[in-house]
């Protein structure tokens, strides 16, 4: 039996009827059509599917869409404003924080939460906080540099 779900994604409201077993990541990618959120390991480890739900970074492969009825979601598509990259995206650009780019959307959404919780992270803290995002290309070194760049360029909190 399908159930109604309603949620806000990147400021836009969506309503659909979905099977309870539909995973949130598939809802986002296939029902809503936002394919920036990736499916990597599909076992809650790699973090490629990371999105923000009500301000918290979560793995959208480990949710049923019906659980998120009423939620406020932000995906990688919600970061850039008016064609201008978010400082975290710019940091990955400036410091070459990616190679193939598959893990990057999830990385960036995790970093979004990281810099909210820890605006001036040490390298050690960055590496600990990135444990849920696996990258098989970069060796993480430039990702850490990208995050340090982003931390320096984030707009001051009001």
């Amino acid at each position: 039996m399908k159930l109604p779900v309603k949620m806000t994604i990147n400021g836009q409201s969506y309503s659909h009827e979905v099977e309870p077993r539909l995973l949130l990541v598939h809802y986002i990618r296939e029902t809503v059509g936002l394919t920036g959120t990736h499916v990597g390991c599909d076992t809650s480890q790699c973090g490629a599917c990371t999105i923000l739900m009500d301000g918290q970074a979560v793995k959208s492969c480990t949710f049923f869409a019906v659980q998120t009825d009423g939620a406020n979601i932000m995906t990688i598509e919600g970061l850039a404003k008016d064609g201008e990259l978010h400082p975290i995206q710019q940091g990955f650009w400036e410091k070459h924080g990616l190679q193939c780019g598959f893990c990057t959307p999830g990385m960036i959404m995790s970093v979004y939460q990281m810099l909210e919780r820890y605006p001036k992270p040490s390298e050690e803290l960055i590496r600990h906080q990135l444990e849920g995002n696996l990258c098989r290309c970069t060796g993480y070194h430039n990702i850490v540099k990208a995050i340090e760049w982003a931390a320096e360029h984030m707009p001051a909190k009001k």
Partner: protein
Amino acid sequence: MYPAAFEYHAPGSVKEALGLLGKHKDDAKLLAGGHSLIPMMKLRLAQPKHLIDLRKVPGLSGIKQDGNVLSIGAMTTHWQVESSALVKSKLAVMSEVAGLIGDPAVRNRGTVGGSIAHADPAADWPAAMIALGAEMVCEGAKGRRTVKVDDWLKGLMSTAVGEDEILVEIRVPVLPASSGAAYLKFPHPASRFAVVGVAAAVTLDGKGMCAKASVGVTGAGTKAVRAKGVEAGCAGKKLDAAAIEAAASKAAEGVDVQADLQGSVEYKSHLCRVFAKRALTEAVKRAGG
């Protein structure tokens, strides 16, 4: 991956949830944060016909102090424990344990009660709960009952919770004066589960001798266990490096160590001893010894 089809329920009270549980019995599973159950459903290791989501049940989330006990609602997330000012001030080791679970995204969703009820053999909380002497509060149709941690873990992913009950609260006593506690683990590189993890809580007497040592070991066997040999080895002793080494040498005794992809029985037994030594050393240091 697509789990088997199921019917989804989101009850608004414990009573309503218990009603659904009573109606669907073995065909039903309770859903908390979902970070153990949903991966199992995706692999079809679990195929419940009815999923009872507790997210709308009020009163199951949050941390408060109740005398010398920290009361943790079963739906409290690991991140809530990790970031709680109350936990940091009253029982900081709980915050540290929470901060070592999985990764930040997992901690945002995974719950203390879910972990304790799921009883994964490599989960972090069970070792900590053993060392801290926690109690689990279960609610059923007839009311609430409390189960001590030593009676809680029955076997591989098996606990004392009744099939018609819901774990609603975890009660963790605050450590007395001159006490220290630590949890250290050897994490799996991808999942961050404990290949072996040891939690130790030590209380010293007026002369700096060990008045009480409480030690839990997770990861190595089919369930987390109390390391009774280590505890006995500590009791009444001045816990210097040699005494800790001697006590920790008993850490794999009583553990049904399982060989798996992470290591042989010999290797994991060795990790038990190494991490018992490190956890005890840190706990004693924190106790002021």
